[in-house]
């Protein structure tokens, strides 16, 4: 205890805590270098665009899982916000489009909060409530837009394309950092941030320490909805249309947060890890294509990598616990 008060001790502690994230970013850097040799035309901006929706889905899931829940409706909420934005923004002027973006973000906050409210009031396990909401939000998305369509103004699509100031800095990455930085950083540093981790790590202890458990839980789902809406908007911007059936983002987001060092048991992990993991998952997919791997094998390889990594992580945790 005393030793950890020293600067070196504190540094060591944060290194150990952040070790997984650090390793992940080292792997990512290695993969980026590898890819640039393999296929020089695959720039950082292509990666950043492809990874943006998944990174936001992972951020959304991370907030809820850190506070001890899970949200299986992230994919549906992304679909709903994606089509809402695409329908309202089609052929819209700049002012309307800005209003739509703000409105869709608020919509995400609201539907996320509704998820949270249902979890808190019904006291049904999170996974069951959000499983039901997966169907409901997916249904609403189909009501808004029956088949892929809608559109987005050129400047919205340009938001994620190309470089920011310099070519080497992709706009999609800057946008991601701005979204995360403007939402998660203030939350993380506030009392709410502490409460999120507290209820995730031990709900009863948090309750006895005076944390408003239910309000915090609701806030975590609202934040999840907000990030999902950002993810939905990212889909509108990157694809230029709305698609009412966004399939894989829920489970892919869960995979990304686990690879990113967030414990599904709650209370541990951050948001940088999951984002790094989203990038790693995206670049692996691209690399498999460039390596000439039969695309049929790519799902199998991705699943295999995921299983091996989580088994390795679990193995390391087991050893630490036993020691």
């Amino acid at each position, binding site marked *: 205890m005393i030793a950890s008060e020293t600067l070196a001790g504190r540094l060591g502690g944060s290194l150990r805590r952040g070790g997984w994230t650090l390793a992940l970013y080292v792997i990512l850097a290695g993969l980026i270098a590898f890819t640039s040799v393999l296929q020089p035309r695959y720039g950082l901006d292509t990666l950043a665009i492809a990874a943006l929706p998944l990174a936001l889905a992972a951020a959304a899931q991370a907030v809820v899982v850190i506070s001890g829940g899970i949200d299986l409706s992230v994919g549906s909420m992304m679909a709903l916000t994606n089509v809402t934005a695409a329908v309202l923004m089609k052929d819209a002027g700049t002012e309307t489009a800005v209003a739509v973006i703000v409105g869709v973000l608020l919509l995400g906050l609201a539907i996320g909060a509704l998820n949270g409210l249902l979890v808190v009031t019904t006291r049904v*396990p999170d996974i*069951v409530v959000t499983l039901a909401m997966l169907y409901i939000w997916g249904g609403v998305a189909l009501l808004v837009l029956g088949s892929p369509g809608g559109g987005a103004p050129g400047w919205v699509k340009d938001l994620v394309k190309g470089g920011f100031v310099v070519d080497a800095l992709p706009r999609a990455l800057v946008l991601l950092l701005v979204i995360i930085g403007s939402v998660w950083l203030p939350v993380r540093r506030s009392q709410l941030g502490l409460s999120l981790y507290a209820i995730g790590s031990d709900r009863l202890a948090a309750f006895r320490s005076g944390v408003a458990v239910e309000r915090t839980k609701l806030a975590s789902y609202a934040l999840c909805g907000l990030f999902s809406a950002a993810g939905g908007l990212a889909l509108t911007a990157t694809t230029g249309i709305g698609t009412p059936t966004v399939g894989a983002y829920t489970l892919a987001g869960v995979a990304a947060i*686990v690879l990113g060092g967030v414990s599904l048991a709650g209370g541990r992990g951050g948001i940088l890890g999951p984002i790094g993991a989203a990038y790693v998952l995206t670049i692996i997919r691209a690399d498999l294509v460039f390596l000439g791997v039969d695309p049929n094998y790519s799902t199998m390889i991705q699943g295999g990598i995921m299983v091996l990594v989580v088994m390795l992580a679990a193995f390391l945790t087991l050893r630490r616990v036993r020691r």
Partner: protein
Amino acid sequence: MSAEHGSAGPVSTGWLSIGPWRNRLRDQPAIPLLVLLAVLVALLQLVQPGIVKADWVATTIKFATPLAILAASQTLVMLTGGIDLSVASVASMSAYIAATQSSSQGDAMAILLALLAAAAVGLMNGVGVGLFRVQPLIMTIGIGLVVTGFLTVYQVLAVASAASVPEVIGGLFGGTSLGAIPNSLFVFAPLAVIILLGLRRAGYGRLLYAVGDNQVAARLAGVRIWQVLLVAYVLSSLLAGVAGLALSGVARSATIALAEPYLLPSVAAVVIGGTSIFGGRGGYTGSIIGALILTVLVSLLTVLEAPQPVRQMIYGAIILGVAAAYTRLTGES
């Protein structure tokens, strides 16, 4: 997610008055579920008078059987406090393997191969969850991806032999005999009895509950938890394999994404049936009725000609409504 027994919120004050009710409901979750099922059937009859007759019952049982078997896989692992999200991929895999291998290997061998492959997948899940202590959710998502990927590759390799569902499977799960009795009942009924008795009476069945209820206590009592979990995941995949065969028998065709739409309903059926997602409480009776409820619900929505989005929303609302009512009545979360 942590187990939330003794959760932080205040105890509701009215528990004394409905206490006896609660205990009865906790012991017999089947009764209110049967009432709900009856209400849905009555609604169906009301919407389209004359639809409920022997034929309809046979068809409903035929369509509910694959879901009920998938729900059995989910029940076993959920009793241990886990979840198996690879069941749909495994079901599709076994159906597809059986359908592609039957022409060259013969029906019996093809079915055996399909079930062996399913068991192998279950072994992988079990090693991850039991030995390495990976969270079941993420382990089974990963393995599910591997299986789906394997199927994509296999489909390309096996393109020479067209997928045709073995005659036996088609007759067993798709046909009827003695008038209107669906043949699938002859497979499902013994299977269900074995699972029900196994969970209630067999030592292994009780171990599933013990591990799910309190892993520490189970370990201190000398239970080798990894063995219980390993076997649970192998059984889960095997049952998923059988469910896949049943599904291909009903559909009379097999594709590599055959069972994908059944993944979340399999979880929903178990949850509606009153099995706790945290483990240790519940049983297979509820899951069977849950599967029937979901099947009848789908046919009710079809008869109502509800558009797909509305159907989906009602489906979700029913899952949430039943789970919430159940939680309210039993006072557990």
